[in-house]
């Protein structure tokens, strides 16, 4: 299995016009800013066409990848040994994250990844135990710009949720 090869395949798919702008999110995205943590899959966010009458479909992506030896397993398509999930931006926050994603050149492979601030805000919004743990990692590592993060939190109606998170995990008071 090889993550770099999986991303290179997605880059080729983009160059071939199958997908538009994409960005890496989830635990793999967080690895660009934090220490690596075990993950079993890769979340790739893709801007799907939304013109009237056009049905959102993974068909072209799966057809392209299956023709290149990838296999479908449940909700994943396995690329270079990694189960990859292609996800539409399901909220204005994720749409903004996709628009603001940054390009990184990793050993001559271009990788587009969510910013640290957006990854932290998405973790706050999604809110599962492992998302809270990831958000704590960002905070403890000082891995994001607090002013940018607060602006995102405010813009997307997450202020109360952030205050609750601070109360539960960042304050010393019981």
């Amino acid at each position, binding site marked *: 299995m090889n993550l770099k090869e999986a991303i290179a395949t997605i880059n080729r798919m983009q160059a071939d016009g199958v997908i538009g702008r994409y960005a890496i999110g989830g635990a793999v995205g967080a690895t660009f800013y934090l220490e*690596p943590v075990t993950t079993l899959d890769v*979340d790739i966010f893709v801007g799907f066409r939304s013109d009237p009458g056009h049905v959102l479909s993974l068909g072209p992506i799966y057809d392209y990848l299956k023709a290149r030896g990838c296999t479908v397993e*449940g909700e994943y398509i396995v690329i270079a040994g990694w*189960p990859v999930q292609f996800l539409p931006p399901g909220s204005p926050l994720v749409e903004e994250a996709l628009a603001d994603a940054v390009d990184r050149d990793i050993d001559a492979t271009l990788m587009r990844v969510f910013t640290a601030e957006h990854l932290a805000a998405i973790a706050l919004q999604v809110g599962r135990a*492992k998302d809270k743990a990831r958000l704590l990692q960002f905070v403890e590592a000082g891995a994001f710009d607090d002013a940018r993060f607060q602006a995102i939190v405010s813009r997307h109606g997450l202020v109360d949720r952030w205050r609750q998170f601070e109360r539960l995990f960042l304050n010393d008071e019981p």
Partner: protein
Amino acid sequence: MSFDLQRILDSKRAFRQKLAARPVAEKLRLLDELRAAALAIRGASVPSPDNAGMVQEDAAKYGDDDSK
């Protein structure tokens, strides 16, 4: 060797910072290795709801419906 908890926690934090500061390419290679090890331990090929007996979280819901 010390059992001073604060020193242990400081040491862990320093180790995590050192890991985080490694080049991204190296960290991605570590993810490859971590996943291989996790699969070997779990004895499964891909995450699946059919993995009976395994405690798993729900899949992420990337929407804002529940954030209010």
